[in-house]
């Protein structure tokens, strides 16, 4: 029972940024003298070696896969063998769309302790403790894993800062057993094509959510956004309903408000998936009728008000 194994995530030839955050997440529970290894699973894993050669990593294990695209069967077979051979006490995986597709299966097959979307990891004596949210993130839930020699955790993105600088960890390779191919990747499709606005580049965003109520109400917020000089974005339900194009959706499965410095959220309750795309913004102003809405826990300023009344009053402020 020793060591920590971080599973790197890559897609279409690029390392996913959450990978390096796992290296930092591991430090809090690392025992003196125990080793931290990063596993690179890909058709050509050596191309990612430089990207994960950061301080804190002792070893990089390249695991060549026969498939180029994401294949849960291939990952489960390879990782099951690698974990079986090395018996790390802790395995960290980014909590991501890819890990949604294989992490629980890997844990079940191996009988590992398991928790998903973990944002805090600690040790208390011999016990490993993992903390995640519950009941719509209104409570924290602290978990332990009695009797489990290996614990697999998927770790929330943007919680831990990636290490800075370069290092020269040892590089080894592991030959993974092949899995039968039951799933064939076909193509990647960009859904944002065709819209005139790139939400990732917008500095000031007015985003609307479920509170808008119906499609006919969207127009007044479009007009408001124009009047105050904001790009109009939205949370998932608005895009799913087709009231705004998918390219306007901010959040985990939509766009990240990367360049945004001012975010005005109207009628958005603040689901974790939406927060993932905007909670980093320097100034967030949230307007919501429900004083207990989660959005107020990440906002800089809050207004408890009816969004239509407030929208009309704000519009009046910008009439010359």
């Amino acid at each position: 029972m020793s060591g920590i194994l971080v599973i790197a995530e890559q897609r279409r030839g690029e390392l996913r940024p959450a990978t390096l955050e796992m290296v930092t997440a591991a430090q809090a529970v690392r025992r003196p003298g125990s080793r931290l290894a990063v596993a690179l699973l890909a058709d050509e894993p050596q191309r990612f070696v430089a990207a994960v050669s950061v301080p804190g990593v002792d070893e990089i294990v390249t695991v060549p896969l026969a498939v180029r695209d994401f294949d849960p069967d291939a990952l489960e077979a390879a990782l099951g063998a690698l974990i079986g051979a090395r018996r790390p006490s802790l395995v960290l995986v980014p909590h991501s769309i890819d890990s949604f597709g294989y992490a629980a299966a890997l844990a079940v097959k191996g009988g590992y302790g398991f928790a998903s979307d973990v944002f805090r990891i600690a040790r208390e004596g011999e016990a490993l403790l993992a903390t995640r949210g519950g009941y719509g993130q209104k409570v924290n839930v602290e978990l332990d894993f009695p009797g489990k020699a290996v614990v697999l955790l998927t770790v929330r993105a943007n919680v831990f800062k990636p290490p800075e600088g370069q290092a020269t960890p040892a590089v080894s390779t592991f030959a993974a057993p092949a899995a039968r191919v039951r799933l064939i990747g076909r193509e990647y499709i960009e859904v944002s094509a065709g819209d005139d606005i790139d939400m990732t580049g917008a500095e000031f965003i007015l985003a609307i959510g479920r509170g808008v109520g119906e499609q006919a109400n969207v127009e007044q917020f479009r007009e408001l956004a124009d009047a105050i000089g904001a790009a109009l974005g939205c949370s998932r339900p608005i895009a799913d309903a087709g009231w705004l194009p998918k390219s306007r959706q901010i959040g985990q499965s939509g766009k990240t408000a990367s360049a945004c410095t001012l975010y005005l959220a109207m009628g958005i309750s603040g689901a974790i998936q939406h927060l993932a795309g905007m909670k980093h913004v320097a100034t967030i102003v949230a307007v919501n009728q429900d004083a207990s809405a989660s959005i107020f826990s990440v906002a800089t300023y809050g207004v408890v008000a009816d969004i239509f009344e407030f929208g009309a009053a704000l519009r009046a402020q910008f009439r010359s």
Partner: protein
Amino acid sequence: MKVLVAVKQVAALDEDFAIRADGRDVEADFLVRDLNEWDDYSLEEAMKIKEAAGTPVEVLAVCVGAEEADEALRKCLAKGADRAIRVWDDALAGADAIAIARVIAAVARREQPQLLLAGAQAADHAFASTGIAVAALLEWPHAAVITQLAYTAGAQSAVVRRELEGGVLHEMQIECPAVLTIQLGINTPRYASLRSIKQAAAKPIEVLTPADLKMTPGEVGEAGSLSRVRRMYVPEKGRAQMIEGSIDEQAARVAQLIRERTGGAA
């Protein structure tokens, strides 16, 4: 041909709530229950397969939960599910997502569906684990966070699109039987008519225990779990600086913030 739809009766918290005396959950009295939003979309997807098929397709809704979970199953029946199974035993209390998956897998072994749909996650605890754990137990192909599904009842494979981060879709072909976890927005779930709600109230819900499904005590509840709740608590949360006053005063303050932070251009 049969499609199994695994559903959950999720719990939201009342505005005021209390943590249970053992510190490991919220007092049940403070939980407001409903069918998981994601599961509404998986059921609709199953109904679409059924309605497009040239041969009979049975849609079976399955839920692990105590008696109050019947309400979630009644919703499924009202929207067109043919049958409903609820599995419960007090030994299932304290089960994590994986131990719930063991029960659903046991039902699937008995029922032999050709497709098993589950929500990509649940609104309450967002484990995003149950469906994929079921697939591992059945040793079936699996794909998560599906926003498009093309499947003809009885076909040997399906074409799915999973929704990746940043507005990208990944199209894949997957062998069936398979487990797919369904993302919001894949379809527009129907509303149940008053008539079908009334009819659903009269339909039977088959109630089973883990023992009925030949599960061993070691697979059930805490024993079959891969994690254990030590404690649950209300975290210290950041709180926005609230802007008070009349609606015009509030709007004036926000307008001022906008002008300050956008250089007064607007």
